[in-house]
């Protein structure tokens, strides 16, 4: 018995000694034959001897013998791997060289920002509607409760095609088009291009993008308008952004509101802030409860249904969110500008 344990110890040391002298793959195979060969391998013989032992002796020797076998197999496999690898795989000379990068085109920032807005509203169960860019006076103004020759039209300076047709000055005509076709409940947003007769300057252009929202149903209140727009703005600008609702005037909503958000550029700390003019607030959207006259114009009974609507300038909001100083950048299409939005 003691002789088998001694032999295990002996071969362990013998293997350690021989393995340290191995230089090439051929020697690994020789070593494997010497220790694990099927007929005359040292370990094979030890296992033969092991079989002759009594049950008590087997208990202590068995474990040691198996351990030795596993160790030898592992070491040989490891060594073989090490010695063979240079022949099998080509070595790279300099791993620090730059990798192959693939250029993906960039979405236009307006598209990108519009999609972010759409996603928020779609998650609240809104669907997306679109409408024509060339409109009639009726849809653009009259149906939205702008009387002919009313000074309210001055804030929507219009590009006309002829006496009947104009370029829509807001996305609101689509409200009318949808309400004419569809009975409540209505829950939509309307993104799109709009036009104003504005001479280009850093914050005005004759073409820009808006997104409009409209909800019509029984029992819709101003509180719903507030709750939804707060969620929207916080999703867009972050949980901590402060906002305020203040009364305003739009012909197509009553009561009307404007929503200001805290200036993210100066936080109200800079009296000369270019973005908020030092007030600490930035006007971001107009909203309100759908005017009863608008409902009457599309044959929806304002005694039964109520609704809220909002409109937001996508360009202006994107300028604010990304701190883009000039609205012109959006339509110059300078690749050095556009390609930055790949990273958004």
């Amino acid at each position: 018995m003691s002789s088998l344990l001694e032999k295990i110890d002996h071969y362990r040391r013998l293997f350690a000694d021989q393995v340290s002298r191995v230089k090439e793959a051929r020697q690994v195979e020789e070593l494997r034959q010497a220790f694990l060969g099927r007929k005359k391998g040292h370990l094979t013989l030890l296992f033969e001897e092991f079989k002759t032992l009594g049950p008590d002796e087997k208990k202590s020797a068995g474990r040691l013998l198996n351990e030795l076998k596993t160790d030898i197999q592992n070491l040989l496999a490891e060594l073989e791997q090490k010695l063979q690898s240079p022949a099998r795989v080509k070595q790279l000379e300099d791993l620090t060289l730059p990798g192959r990068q693939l250029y993906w085109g960039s979405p236009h920032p307006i598209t990108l920002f519009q999609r972010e807005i759409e996603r928020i509203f779609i998650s609240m169960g809104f669907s997306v509607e679109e409408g024509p860019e060339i409109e009639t006076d009726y849809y653009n103004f009259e149906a939205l409760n702008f009387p002919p020759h009313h000074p309210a039209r001055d804030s929507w300076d219009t590009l006309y095609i002829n006496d009947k047709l104009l370029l829509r000055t807001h996305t609101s005509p689509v409200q009318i088009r949808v309400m004419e076709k569809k009975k409540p409940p209505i829950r939509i947003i309307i993104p799109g291009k709009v036009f104003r007769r504005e001479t280009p300057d850093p914050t005005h252009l004759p073409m820009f993008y808006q997104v409009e929202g409209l909800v019509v149903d029984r029992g819709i209140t101003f509180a719903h308008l507030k709750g939804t727009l707060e969620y929207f703005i916080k999703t867009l600008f972050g949980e901590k952004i402060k906002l305020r609702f203040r009364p305003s005037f739009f012909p197509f909503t009553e009561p009307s509101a404007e929503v200001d958000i805290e200036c993210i550029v100066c936080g109200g700390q800079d009296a000369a802030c270019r973005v908020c003019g030092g007030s600490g607030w930035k006007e971001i959207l107009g909203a309100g409860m759908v005017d009863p006259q608008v409902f009457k114009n599309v044959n929806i009974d304002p005694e039964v249904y109520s609704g809220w609507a909002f409109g937001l300038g996508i360009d202006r909001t994107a300028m604010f969110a990304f701190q883009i100083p000039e609205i012109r950048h959006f339509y110059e299409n300078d690749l050095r500008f556009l390609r930055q939005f790949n990273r958004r």
Partner: protein
Amino acid sequence: MKISYSWLKEFVNLNLPPEELAGCLNQIGLMVESVTPVGEDTVFEIETYANRPDTLGHLGVAREIATLLELSLKTRNWPLKELPQATSGLVDINILDPQLCPRYCGLVVKGVRVGPSPDWLKKKLEAVGLRPINNVVDVSNFVCFSLGQPIHTFDLKKLRGGKIKIRKARKGETIRTLEGQPVELDQEMLVIADETTPVAIAGVIGGEESGITESTTDVFIESANFNPVSIRLTAKKLGISTDASYRFERGADPNAAPAAAVMAASLLCEFGGRVSRGLLDLYPVPRKPRTVTLRLRRVNELLGLEIEPEFVVKTLSSLGLKLREQSPRVWTAEIPTFRVDLEREADLVEEVARFYGYDRIPSAVTPVKSFELPADRRRDRVWRLKEVLFHHGFDEVINFSFADPEKELLWQTGCRPIKLKNPISAKLSSLRTSLLPGLVENAVWNFNREAEGVHIFEVGNIYYWEGEETHRENLNLGILTTGLRSGRTWREAEKETDFYVLKGALEDVCNYLGYDQLSFEPVEHPFFEPGQALKILVKKEPVGLLGLLNSNLARNYDLERPAYCAEIDLNELLRKQPRAFRFQPVPRFPGVSRDLSFLVEDSLTYQQIQEQLQKLNIPYLENFLIYDRFQGKNLPPGKVSFSVRFNFRHSARTLQTEEVDRAMQEITSQLKSTLKIQLR
């Protein structure tokens, strides 16, 4: 509108710090754009709304503040030093068009010493941005900016016959305005005339001839009310906007006219004036005050809260409304004539909400009562299309929808452009009929700014007349690729873009949207170089064009590099039904590939070869692809070499070599007979 703090104090007792007052004004919707100290005074620039002419005077703003702070408005008496003569004995007023002039009040002040105004008056006017002129003009401005009621002063001696006629202008009549500008009047314009000629354009501007001068002693004060639409049309037509027209076109209060005349007269007494007895007040059809029913239930329904009825009554009464309870919590409200904006119940709900405070209204989730399926998948498809193009390395651009008609003529788009009636400039005076001019301009812009390659696309409308009357806007896709496709790296040399970069992107757009494969036909079109363009077809219907940009056009834009571009009618393309997606079993048996290289006449196109190959009825031919094409070198002249790889596979077993050999023989012999190929 500029509001002076000290001026406000003449109407209401205020002692808030200016910043706090600004906060109050914001809360009720009189948005303060700036707060500026002016000497001891503070001036607020406030945003006013087109429906709130009552806030165009300090009194109106004071009324709002008084309501918010629960203060009462001050009243002031305007004493007169009277002349013995009655007004009616000095002037004769006649309203010839009561539709356009509902009310006209007049007073005469004699013996006025015209000269500079006293300091208190100058300071007030200067604070709100008005230039002091002389005491008479300054008094009329002071009244206007106090009450919001414009008044006009005439030199009485210049009014021929002492007559005032409010009538429409006659054909050919002209007037020289106070600004010295000669104006031709038309028969739609309301004027104030004396016995013979117009002396003022009613509600817009006075005439120079009848104006107040240094030598004026006797003043006729006009305080009238004019039809808003008439004033607006006249002012717009003449291109003249004054403080008076601005107020009248928004709707002045007819009941403010008498008080304004008296206030002006009283102030003129301080400069030696004595006032004629009895205000002349022509008001042929007095306006009946409007009444509106207000239900507390409706207030709460629209705002989503519970408001106390006492708050409603207190607020609206303070704003000048007279409330009478019809039934519990339902009122009839009589609207004061200065509030032209209050017409319906919803308007009163807004008044309650404004003074209650929007910030105190709770926030709630808009309830969802039904789900709707999206109306169509068009928007999803447009986005998918963009994603494919991003993947191909194209950047998205957005250009103006406007076009320079002269430049667009060069393109011969074949569409009749839509011109604007009142464009901003000649260069922006029509609407684009193609997306390509914009893309070419973008390419040039970027080449001039160090870009070495420009690969861009735009999805947007083009616009044109169809027939005489029908306007169209059509969603198009424009793509352009020019210059370097990729820059040089340590692994690869730089690559120039080419026609096939563009064509591949378009083919992929169709593949990934699930449309049938595109087919192409050679075409000649003014956008492209002769022989270098293709018409794009889906299911044999044309959807667009692609090719090498015409070199004359390129030169016109100073674009030096070859540019490949395409324009696709997306309305047409997206109307097509994509193939329904069906899962195909993953192959279980190995495929076999065979290559075939052959020579054909160089007049033969790949498309012709492809069409022949598609006609072949070869079992187990999974697909084929061209992997080489060349001409010249060692080939006989007039010949071109193609190499095509054929992939075979059987779905239920491994193919035998002999089967594939037979198939290749069949392919070869068919192509020999149809295309006269020579094997290489």
